[in-house]
């Protein structure tokens, strides 16, 4: 659990983060959104103390994050940034091994971890371990960057616009991978992004920053239903509201009993994608299949329409 308690940061009298308080539940994904310069990065960097706050405190599982030296704290918290920040003179394996080496793990354990992470991120260890970063594509570099952040098995992973530099197709893949890995490892992720689609796709909770202040912090559905300010409403986009609602949950969550004709949908696709599929196929219902292929039931145009309506 991360407790941010009345945190403020001022540079030369200018307040860039203003008295922000929020509690981040363990094993969840929290996404921080807001316009450029609203203080998202600064807030994120105060969690691992790359930036020291002017006032307030941050507690990790109850312990003040100032109870240990900054570098030690940072070895326990994963950190991934836009443009990956890989070390150009070190191989992929050496990059990933950075923090384990700093922590003094033995070689066997480090090697095992590197292999495990490369496999997890779908990079063949035999082909990639000894390559240098410039020998990877942008998407591969990004994955190595995240793998490096996860190498010391941190409970918390901070990500600052991690997918900002990727093209839409690779980005969608990277998001899906991140969610899968987050579920697998149970990591608490705090992620900064400009992309509202990304926020709704990934977030358990969304924090909206505006001019240094936290204007709303809640579940995605709450933001759509009750935007705290006009700014939040603009950010979500008035015409996007029904689709935002549908992009939060999966087709599996909308399954109804009953038969349906046609190509089954995977239960993991978002309801938004399911709706799109229904509209495109011209059908009123489509079957939903689990990953093992068994048919769970169906999604219907009518059911999804109900779910897209303003919550009462």
């Amino acid at each position, binding site marked *: 659990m991360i407790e941010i308690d009345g945190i403020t940061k001022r540079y030369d009298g200018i307040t860039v983060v203003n008295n922000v308080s929020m509690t981040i539940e363990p094993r969840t994904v929290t996404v921080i959104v807001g316009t450029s310069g609203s203080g998202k990065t600064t807030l994120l960097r105060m969690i691992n103390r790359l930036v020291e706050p002017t006032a307030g405190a941050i507690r990790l599982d109850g312990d003040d994050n100032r109870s240990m030296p900054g570098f*030690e704290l*940072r070895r326990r918290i994963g950190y991934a*940034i836009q443009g990956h*920040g890989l070390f*150009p*003179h070190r191989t992929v394996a050496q990059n990933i091994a950075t923090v384990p080496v700093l922590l003094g793990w033995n070689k066997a354990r480090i090697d095992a971890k590197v292999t495990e992470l490369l496999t997890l991120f779908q990079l063949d260890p035999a082909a990639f371990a000894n390559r*240098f970063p410039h020998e990877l594509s942008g998407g591969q570099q990004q994955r190595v960057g995240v793998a490096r952040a996860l190498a010391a098995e941190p409970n918390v992973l901070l990500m600052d616009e991690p997918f900002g530099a990727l093209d839409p197709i690779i980005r969608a893949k990277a998001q899906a991978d991140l969610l899968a890995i987050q579920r697998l490892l149970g990591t608490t992720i705090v992620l900064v992004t400009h992309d509202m689609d990304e926020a709704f796709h990934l977030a358990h909770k969304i924090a909206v920053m505006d001019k240094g202040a936290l204007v709303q912090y809640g579940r995605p559905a709450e933001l759509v239903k009750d935007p705290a300010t006009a700014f939040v409403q603009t950010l979500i986009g008035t015409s996007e509201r029904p689709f935002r609602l549908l992009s939060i949950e999966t087709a599996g969550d909308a399954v109804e009993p009953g038969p349906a004709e046609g190509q089954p949908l995977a239960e993991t696709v978002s309801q938004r994608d399911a709706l799109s599929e229904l509209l495109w196929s011209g059908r009123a219902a489509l079957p939903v299949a689990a990953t093992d292929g068994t048919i769970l039931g169906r999604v219907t145009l009518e059911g999804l329409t109900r779910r897209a309506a303003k919550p009462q």
Partner: protein
Amino acid sequence: MKRPGPQKGSRPEWDGDGSLSIRFDKLGVVIALLIAYAVLAAPFATFRANRIVPGDAKGILQALPAGAGMLLLALMAGVALVVLLKTPTRLRLFAAAAGLAAIAVFIGMAATFLTPPANSYARVSPASGFWILLFSFALLAADSITRMRPLPLVRLLLLVMTLGGAAVVLTSGLWDGLSILKEYSGRADVFWLEAGRHVTLALGSLFAAVLVGLPLGILCHRVAPLRAGVLNTLNLIQTIPSIALFGILIAPLGWIAVNVPGAAAIGIRGIGAAPAFVALFLYSLLPVVANTVVGLAGVPREANEAARGIGMTDRQRLFGIEFPLAMPVILTGIRIVLVQNIGLATIAALIGGGGFGVFVFQGIGQTAMDLVLLGAVPTVVLAFAAAIVLDALIEMNAPQRERGRTA
């Protein structure tokens, strides 16, 4: 920008219609002209009745026994032909090596031939034609080696082979008749003593400059307000002429020698090796500090950011990330300093600091050019060798990222 006409380098020697098309090498034309001039119009060796009288220039045919002279002419013509045409690079390198070996052997032969028997006053030295040939072949060798892009290790090997060849010629006695070696034979002990001093002075001041300059560079990188001041001061020092700097140093070092206990005992004096060492050290600081600052500034911001973000301490970041990434640039600075110091150390002789400069200035004083050469030639060879070694080191160190592909 496509132009009509044959593609460079891709056309066969024989055209389709069977006519021979001869293609010239651009640099080769220049080198061949130089060779032709050196062989036909310039003297190969100079004969003097003693070491200071004006000499008597001799062409190749006069300087060598009849058969040998013709042979050298033929060899030179052969090399010129290889150079002139577009020939394979390996052949060109071989021609350069053969040319060098030939003039090395024949200049020794000329010395024996021209010196009257049992005359220890007569002097035979290489003349302008020899030097032009030497320059031409060196240029050809450098050009061929550059075209072949050898690995750093191969370049080092070539250097060792060249120096080894020179050592063999020197110890074989082939050149013993040459004036420069006659100068050497009279002062072999002093020569090696001064050589030792020269190297100590050049390397010692470099070492001191790295020891001080690296931390200073790091400090300038981390503490921005310091940067401009330090670099400007070092720049200013760089503009002081060396003789003036020696003069400036005499007073403070003399004062230290008199007033600081023990200073005189370790050799600190107003003149001698101490001011020379300090001057070289001061000149060396700017390239070392400036290149350290530039190198560190060139480290990608994201790499630094990530290093901090994942929990490296400042020291770990410096040694693990910043230094390795800045190393090629820092080494370039060190290379500049080393070559510069080997040259500048010659000046140390002016204030009694020793080194090869001793022979240069003695030679100038006695108008004995051979003695000047005894100081100058080893200095040039040393500087060249140092440059080649450091270039190879830089290349071995720099594109680790590129080499990763093949490793």
